[in-house]
């Protein structure tokens, strides 16, 4: 298995995974979307809310705010050994504001300085003159498969690596015009696609269809995948991929354990 990173920024990642099966690539994709543990607000104790939003609407907005935390130190509430709640399974954050003011996710005061909303500028509600908001939010660890509030990977996807080959090109240039991505160029021995541009190919086959002498074959390498990963901010893109791999490893370790004690 090989990984070639094309882009790795805080929230975006693009990489080519090669020498891997479709099953593994899809497993990784699904783990990023659904199996990565994150922290999100699940309960809200409202002491005062005179804003224009109902309590439930406010709760929904709060729950969808991504929270940055070290989830290795936290456990989901169902798995925690405590009776009701403890610092390992529950994080409390308070929010108190009085209008006129726009309340932002950055206004939260967290009980743990390491745990805070990953974006400070998410508008929660606009308070008009005299309106008040006072609440305590309780955040718990969960997984994207249960609710979108815990979904750390956004629209993570992959496509198989395109392989477009040209044989005995007669330089008619019709494929160059047909390509919707404008990646076909005229080289010394006929039409060609640069290696970097190949990533852009969508396997639309327009070039093969328009070629009068069937000189173009459009194929895909089913052992190589171009991944596009986006994080919601609760993890960096790099951490998200690591966490997804960890989640896969945990699952297979669990399977191994079951088989050993069979």
């Amino acid at each position, binding site marked *: 298995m090989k990984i070639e990173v094309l882009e790795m920024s805080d929230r975006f990642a693009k990489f080519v995974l090669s020498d891997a099966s479709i099953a593994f690539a899809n497993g990784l994709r699904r783990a990023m979307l659904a199996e990565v543990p994150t922290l999100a607000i699940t309960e809200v104790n409202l002491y005062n809310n005179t804003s224009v*939003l109902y309590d439930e609407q406010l709760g929904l907005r709060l729950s*969808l705010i991504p929270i940055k935390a070290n989830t290795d130190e936290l456990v989901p509430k169902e798995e925690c050994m405590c009776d009701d709640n403890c610092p390992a399974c529950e994080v409390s954050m308070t929010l108190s504001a009085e209008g006129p003011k726009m309340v932002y996710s950055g206004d939260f005061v967290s009980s743990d300085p390491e745990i805070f909303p990953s974006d400070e500028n998410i508008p929660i509600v606009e308070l008009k003159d005299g309106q008040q908001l006072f609440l305590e939010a309780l955040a718990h660890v969960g997984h994207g498969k249960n609710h979108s509030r815990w979904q750390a990977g956004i629209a993570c996807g992959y496509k198989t690596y395109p392989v477009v080959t040209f044989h005995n090109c007669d330089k008619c240039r019709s494929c160059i015009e047909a390509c919707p991505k404008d990646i076909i160029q005229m080289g010394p021995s006929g039409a060609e696609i640069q290696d970097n541009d190949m990533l852009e190919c969508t396997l639309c086959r327009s070039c093969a269809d328009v070629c009068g002498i069937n000189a173009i074959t459009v194929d895909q390498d089913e052992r190589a995948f171009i991944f596009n990963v986006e994080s919601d901010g609760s993890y960096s893109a790099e951490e998200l991929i690591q966490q997804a791999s960890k989640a896969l490893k945990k699952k297979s370790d669990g399977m191994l354990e079951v088989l050993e004690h069979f």
Partner: protein
Amino acid sequence: MIPVRCFSCGGVIANKWEEFKRRVYEGESSDTILDDLRVTRYCCRRMMLSHVELVDTIAPYY
């Protein structure tokens, strides 16, 4: 209020809303702003483009 996340893909969009709104008022065209903010998928773009702020409409009745 702008939804915190996109309904379709779950991407956070509310953190880009105020910059988007400001730059639209300043006369920039919305497609270049969205490209600039890396709101690339059309599900997220429609969240921004079609949003109507209703707080000021409702507030007098509270």
